[in-house]
């Protein structure tokens, strides 16, 4: 290896190091105020055949230690999980299909049986889209609790990037 090659190699290392360092500094600043969200949407680009009915699977994750009511809670007083989308041109979205919940009762009140989602859950959205790239905007409304406290109902923005070809 010639000296020139060594010098070039060294310089490249330095540049790479500096770039990573700069990226780290960049990462430090935008640590936003803790968003009080108990459900996260696992946004994935969706590819479907154009003009054909396809069922999208939208994955959500309830933060560990929490649960949200399912779409069909056991009491009319409880707030169901609900996903709604704005109408989009060239995309025909059918009613959302929700998964069944799992039974839950707290140690404080074993008599009250709840029907909840916890951990990962997936909601199905049947769509028929014209060829092209589309964006669907929607919101997931949910109400979360842990074993000792409940949080006011929240809405989570859900955006789907849909490619039909």
């Amino acid at each position: 290896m010639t000296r020139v090659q060594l010098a070039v190699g060294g310089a490249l290392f330095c540049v790479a190091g500096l770039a990573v360092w700069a990226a780290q500094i960049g990462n430090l600043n935008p640590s936003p105020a803790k968003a009080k969200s108990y459900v996260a949407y696992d946004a994935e680009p969706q590819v479907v055949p154009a003009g054909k009915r396809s069922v999208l699977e939208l994955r959500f994750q309830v933060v560990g230690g929490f649960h949200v009511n399912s779409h069909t809670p056991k009491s009319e007083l409880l707030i169901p999980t609900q996903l709604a989308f704005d109408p989009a041109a060239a995309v025909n979205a059918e009613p959302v299909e929700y998964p069944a919940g799992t039974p839950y009762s707290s140690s404080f009140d074993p008599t009250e049986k709840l029907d909840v989602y916890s951990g990962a859950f997936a909601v199905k959205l049947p769509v028929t889209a014209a060829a092209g790239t589309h964006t669907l905007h929607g919101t997931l409304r949910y109400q979360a609790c842990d074993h000792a406290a409940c949080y006011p109902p929240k809405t989570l923005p859900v955006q789907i990037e849909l490619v039909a070809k």
Partner: protein
Amino acid sequence: MKRSVLVFGVMVFGVALLLWAGWHNLRERRLAMQQAQANRVALVPGKGGQPDSSTAPESEAPTMRGKTAPGFTLVALDGKKVSLSDFKGRPVLVNFWATWCGPCKVEMPWFEEFHKQYAAQGFEILGLADDVDAGKDAIAKVAQKTGVTYPILLTDGKVQTAYGGLDYLPMSFYIDRRGVIVEETAGLGGKDEIEAHIKKTIASGAPAAAGGQ
């Protein structure tokens, strides 16, 4: 020769920089994880009969302990106006709850029991329904189902702010005879813990000589 040493030094520096960046990244992630974990723990304050000062979500709800309880005038389920000042000189528990809050409904029958048990000491409970949008009927239905006979008041949005914003429910404020918040709890605690807070509230600010209680 000298030059290659220099180049080698530069390379070592570059590698060191990369390692440092990696370590820094890991540390940041760990911190973020710890923070998330801490936030979770904070959601069940005062569980083991322990005062919840250390576990209260520090950034979300600054404690109101030791402060004068903010005054309010709200409409009760029966349509009457009820003010906190109506209970001046008496120990009062202000409990925020909602129809959609399961843990709230667990402790409401306990409150009712203690309400009766400590009535002779002037102890009063005010249940403030946080979800007025659920409708008066739904609120009344839950109150009835839980067997509550103490006043249920409909919140106005301002009272929640005055009491620190209420990030979650249930939230209870124990106000002594002088109108000072002596205890504040967030989330469902144990029944014994609630009774201990009530006793403390009754004892606090009591006239030392004249009381005899």
